[in-house]
């Protein structure tokens, strides 16, 4: 079943056309990976889905409803969470405050909180600490935890492994696997090894256009296609 559809989406940032023609279908369930070289338009795609940049023309359809004209806050309330590239935590707030911000009622669901503690034990240890004082990995954990503190239909995650130690990346992969059992993840990633271990379906964006879509297993097996679409020399 289709969860999200991007239809001929074009996004301009000031005078620059970043996305030219992005057409993509994200099915419900599992991890959908969006790959691409630096500057290909991966982050712009996620920000356009969230309404942080307005696609024009083109549309974003979520569960059959056109959300392209909605305000970012309305998009979030539809059940889409966004974990931006730079972790997106509020440094001046404690872990508790960062998480409570993302709850609908201002109160924690104990079961969900315990699940987060299970996925990211460090967050429980540093519960009252301000986010600026956390390590990069802990900040990333907090950003992901904030996305799942309430039930969501879709989580957009932008390069979660950037700058993280291998052990943290492994922990993050385990967490994403567990989260994807109940929530669809649209993952933008440059770390192909990490993406390969998680993705079921995938797409490659190149120069603001979708250059390839298919299953991750097929793409991982096709070295020539990887070189063509992802290598720096191409």
């Amino acid at each position, binding site marked *: 079943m289709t969860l999200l559809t991007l239809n001929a989406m074009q996004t301009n940032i000031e005078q620059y056309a970043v996305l030219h023609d992005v057409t993509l279908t994200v099915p419900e369930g599992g991890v959908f990976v969006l790959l691409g070289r630096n500057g290909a338009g991966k982050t712009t795609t996620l920000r356009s889905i969230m309404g942080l940049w307005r696609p024009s023309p083109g549309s974003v359809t979520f569960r059959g409803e056109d959300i392209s004209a909605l*305000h970012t806050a309305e998009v979030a309330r539809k059940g889409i969470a966004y974990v*931006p590239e730079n972790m997106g935590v509020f440094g*001046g707030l404690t872990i508790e*405050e960062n998480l409570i911000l*993302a709850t609908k009622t201002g109160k924690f669901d104990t079961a969900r909180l315990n699940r987060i503690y299970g996925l990211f034990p460090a967050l429980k240890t540093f519960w009252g600490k301000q986010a600026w004082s956390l390590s990069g990995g802990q900040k990333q954990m907090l950003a992901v935890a904030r996305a799942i503190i309430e039930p969501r239909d879709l989580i957009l995650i932008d390069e979660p492994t950037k700058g993280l130690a291998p052990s943290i990346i492994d922990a993050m992969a385990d967490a994403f696997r567990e989260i994807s059992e109940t929530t669809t993840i649209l993952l933008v990633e440059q770390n192909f090894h990490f993406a390969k271990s998680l993705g079921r379906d995938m797409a490659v964006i190149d120069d603001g256009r979708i250059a390839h879509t298919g299953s991750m297993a097929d793409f991982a097996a096709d070295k020539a296609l990887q070189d063509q679409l992802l290598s720096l020399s191409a």
Partner: protein
Amino acid sequence: MTEQNSTGALIVKITVLTIGAALLFAPFLFQDVRSLEVAARICVFVVLVASYDLLIGYTGIVSFAHTMFFGFGAYGAAIALKQMGPGWDAVMVGGLAGMLVSLIVAVAIGLLSLRVKAIFFAMITLAVASVVLVLASQLSDFTGGEDGITYRAPQLFKTATKLAVDEDGKVLRLFGVKLNGKLAAYYFVFATSLALFVLMFRLVGSPLGTVLKAIRENEARAEAIGYRVVSYRTFVFCIAALAASLAGTIYAIWLKYTGPDTMLSFSIMIDILLMVVIGGMGTMWGAVIGAVLMVLAQYYLRDLMGAAAEATSNLPILPELLNPDRWLLWLGIIFILLVYFFPRGIAGTIMQKGIAK
């Protein structure tokens, strides 16, 4: 360890509670007219600074229209007391009228302007405040023009009013202080200012306060987790405007005079800004410390310098440097030193100390 339970936070809280106790007992501790004026001004400015901190410290909104809302409240009470006579009905009508005008103007500015970048918003508020200041000076039939309005406060607050009398019918004294209308007026100022401060304090400690801090840090992130930033910014702008308006009404009742220089001038706006910076942005405790230090400096720095100049009269240069006429220069130097040694304001810097890195 969080900001709330560090050693520094404890020091700040004890200091503020001590200031609160001093203000509570001010009429008994400092038994002269000037001290009571200073104490009442501190109470009103604590509210004014705290409400401005809601904007600049908690939400990141830079506004130059805060004294305008202060003026609306003051002029509302002043005009009502002048027209209707010195009764509580006039206070209510004037206070509510001031709040209503403040609310309408705040909603209009908020909805029309809070979408623009911070610098443009600041310029818009500056322009609106300037227009109101000019109008207050020119609509003299209504506002008293440059001379302002003099009026009488409700009967209870008249100095001649006896709150309690002895057997001879004379006003009763408690620890040497007359229980008269002046004392009632001070406690009216103290109690209403305290109530407003506590309300704002609770507001920033509520989930709403957390949202405001998140908006201050990063608007786009706050929107991405479901908060309509413009709505929240407009709401807090209105709350701050209402608090400033009420502070204006309270001060107008205390002073029994309202004029453009005392209620609307940009020098008051600068004072508020300095108080917020000195106390520490984004901390309600800082509003108290900033207001106390600034008001005390405004009232007593000249006297202090005069005494210092006299004490050093035999020395070269120093008496000239400490001439009371140079008090603004010294106030500026003190401000620079405070900003240098307390970059996050006094409360902000002290509260930050002792927090685990």
